[in-house]
């Protein structure tokens, strides 16, 4: 890999000049290594990008800084030139002059802007006389200073998404005011993926604010999946891969392809596999066209009988919304689903109608949407077949129990006791029950969202096999997942999403973990079959 000279490795400046410096940071969870000897530094008034795939260690690193995880012994940390003992106590980051803005912003919508602004003061200080007037004035000055047209007395729920993000950033900066005046440190803001749900114009607005805060002396760590954004806003960036620093570089001296290569880990030779490897012409059993809704725009898809299609992309790209829109779990604004020639308008679609059309959904959130943990395996698995298996009246008849026993056998649900509450089973076995619940209907279209999330390694393969078997029996499968390994394992084709659109597609042998990752990170401008120069 050719990197611009002298850019690999962290902490090139003298320790004294850096706002934050980390040396040799490692973290193990049980036997798994999340971070391995990570070192990097952030200079004053620097916007430092932090990049990496899911599982590369980004969030572990952030959580160590937040005092949420205790790092392995041997790591060292300097903040503003002075060494700080690790681990940082929970909440101790504020005293160090570090402030976080997480993806979900941490605002309470029903409270006013001012109350949200002061929320951490309320949390940590006993105040018996809040000077609302003075605080309001201060807030107004703060907003004027950063060019935000926000009324402090307005409830946050009335603000647009971008203004909320701006407010969260200003708040994070404001929270450092006391530390700033007390110590020499100018403060460090960690922005943990603040942009994926914002449209492009709003991202520019957010960047303007980040630049102003940097102008006023702060440093920023900008965590993102979006390489274009990193190229635009950061001065330097560090890429993590498999828990190690893959490289630190001056942003202006690299190209997008360099970064993609560094994230994915090797130069990806795109095999020019013959497209339309199988079953795409004519014999489509399920067709979708013109699907709009949520962040998905104008999606069209053809699925052949027995075909498993993966849907993936970066967070915020909309890939994970498609299955819910098709099922009517979230409302689509337009679109048509055709199953074996039967047309179904998607705007008025409901789960009940979807099931009637031969369509089932295995949701990603098993605890809250997939099964009721306090009810038995028998109750959970029987829900969709109460009428058919047990013909209306008298449902506790042995037929339901017999059906559940057969299913538990076929899907290898352990322990084989349908009377157990499903919550007492392991994640993998719970998922087998949810699959059994739906696959017993012999559906024509199977919609999956992260089917192996929270599923142990052993059960993972069984879940794959159950899906493959259903496909062999002729069902069409759509599987939304951010687990590229899983997509490689089960999919015939993979559609990659960016900004709500399916922008590229991989088929057959092209589907490898790294090819999917590469297409995801290159986003909209990676046309199908384009090779890396």
């Amino acid at each position, binding site marked *: 890999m050719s990197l611009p000279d002298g850019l690999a490795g962290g902490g090139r400046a003298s320790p004294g000049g850096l706002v934050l410096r980390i040396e040799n940071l490692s973290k193990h969870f049980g036997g798994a290594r999340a971070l391995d000897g990570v070192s990097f530094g952030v200079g004053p008034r620097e916007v430092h990008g932090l990049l990496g795939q899911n599982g590369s260690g980004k969030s572990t690193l952030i959580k160590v800084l937040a005092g949420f995880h205790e790092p392995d012994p041997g790591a060292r940390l300097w903040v503003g030139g002075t060494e700080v003992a690790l681990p940082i106590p929970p909440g101790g980051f504020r005293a160090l002059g570090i402030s976080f803005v997480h993806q979900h912003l941490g605002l309470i919508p029903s409270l006013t802007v001012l109350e949200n602004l002061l929320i951490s003061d309320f949390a940590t200080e006993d105040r018996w006389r809040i000077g609302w007037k003075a605080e309001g004035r201060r807030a107004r000055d703060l907003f004027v200073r950063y060019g935000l047209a926000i009324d402090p007395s307005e409830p946050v729920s009335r603000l647009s998404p971008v203004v909320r993000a701006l407010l969260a950033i200003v708040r994070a900066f404001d929270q450092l005011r006391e530390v700033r005046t007390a110590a020499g440190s100018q403060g460090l803001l960690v922005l943990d993926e603040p942009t994926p749900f914002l449209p492009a114009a709003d991202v520019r607005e957010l960047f303007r604010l980040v630049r102003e805060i940097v102008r006023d002396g702060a440093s920023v760590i900008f965590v993102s999946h979006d390489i274009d954004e990193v190229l635009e806003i950061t001065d330097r960036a560090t890429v993590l891969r498999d828990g190690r620093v893959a490289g630190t570089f001056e942003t202006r001296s690299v190209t997008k392809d360099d970064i993609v290569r560094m994230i994915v880990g090797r130069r990806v030779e795109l095999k020019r596999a013959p497209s339309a490897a199988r079953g795409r012409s004519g014999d489509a059993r399920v067709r979708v066209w013109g699907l709009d809704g949520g962040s998905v725009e104008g999606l069209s898809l053809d699925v052949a009988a027995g075909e498993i299609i993966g849907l993936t992309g970066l967070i915020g790209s909309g890939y994970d919304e498609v299955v819910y829109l098709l099922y009517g779990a979230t409302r689509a604004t337009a679109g048509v689903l055709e199953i074996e020639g039967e047309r179904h308008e998607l705007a008025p679609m409901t789960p009940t109608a979807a099931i009637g059309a031969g369509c089932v959904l295995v949701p990603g959130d098993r605890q*809250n949407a997939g099964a*009721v943990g*306090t009810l038995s395996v028998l109750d959970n698995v029987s829900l969709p077949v109460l*009428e058919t298996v047990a013909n209306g009246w008298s*449902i*506790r008849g042995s037929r339901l129990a017999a059906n559940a026993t057969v299913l538990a056998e076929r899907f290898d649900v352990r322990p084989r006791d349908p009377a157990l509450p499903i919550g007492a089973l392991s994640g993998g076995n719970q998922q087998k029950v949810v699959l059994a619940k739906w696959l017993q209907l012999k559906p024509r279209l199977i919609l999956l969202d992260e089917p192996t999330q929270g599923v142990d390694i052993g059960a993972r393969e069984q879940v794959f096999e159950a899906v493959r078997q259903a496909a062999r029996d002729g069902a069409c499968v759509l599987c939304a997942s951010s687990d590229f390994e899983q997509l490689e394992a089960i999919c015939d084709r993979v559609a990659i999403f960016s900004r709500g659109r399916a922008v590229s597609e991989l088929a057959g042998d092209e589907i490898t973990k790294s090819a999917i990752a590469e297409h995801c990170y290159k986003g909209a401008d990676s046309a199908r079959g384009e090779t890396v120069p």
Partner: protein
Amino acid sequence: MSAASGSSPSTVEQARKKASRQNLVDRLERYGLIIAWAVVIAIFGVLRPDTFLTWPNFATILGSQAVLVVATLGLIIPLTAGDYDLSLASVLTLSSMVIAVLNVNYGVPIGLSVLAALCTGVLTGIVNGFFITYFGIHSLIVTLGVGTFLHGITLWISDSMTISGISFDLVNAVIVWRFLGVPLEFYYALTLCIIVWYVFSYTALGRRLLFVGRNREVARLSGIRVDRVRWGSLIASGFLGSLAGVLYAGTTGAADPSSGMTYLLPAFAASFLGATGINPGRFNPWGATIAVYFLVTGITGLSILGISTFVQDLFYGGALVIAVTLSQIVRGREERLA
């Protein structure tokens, strides 16, 4: 037992002991309510054998509380589906007043009066369900408001006065005619209990109610029309509330504008207390019915001992809090299992 299982006989024995102990705990939990009821009867029987332990006394207890049983059975339907119906007692009071006003003041035949009373209950359920499902307002708020509104109507149509002289056809059918010395209304309540039990345990509808109450999202994604189920459960509780009102009017032969309101708390207490037994962790009709009689037996016994009426409030209020605490403990154990 085969020794080939690989584990030594003593550990197998221990496991079996543990299992049987668990079994015993389960059974105690299941039938704890009945045992508690028996204990209460035994205590008062020893203290006042000549007045308490008499068939007429039990016949009175069984008969007089049929109204509360019906109201409680009505309440556990929306509770199972995850909604509260605080308008239940108001429906009960209003429907008994509707009978009195129509039958006594306007001379409407008793059959039509009862029909009108039942219609008010169904109508209330429709209104409750409309606000709860269509606008997504919490059931606690809607039914509290609707209940108060209905009580206003009751006071209005009755001029805040007790109206007596309801047709004896109703009074006869409810409390005068007896079977085995127990007024017929007890058997009405018993029949209703059997119906609710059947629907809860043997029909798809009952299973849907349960899933809607446990997790609306799972229910919705499983194709259950959640709003329809919730709405239906509120109509059912409205209907049963008004049926309780009909029995109430028949029991007293009159309707007064406020005493029916006192049924709300006992109904909740019995619902939650009932959920700790028979089918622990679930609102269930047998548990609820037994809980009603357990509470009433206690109160009757105490009043026979000469303790004045405030004991009723102590008993019901205390029972509600204890029952909810117990069911919380049961649920806590279920969650630990999960």
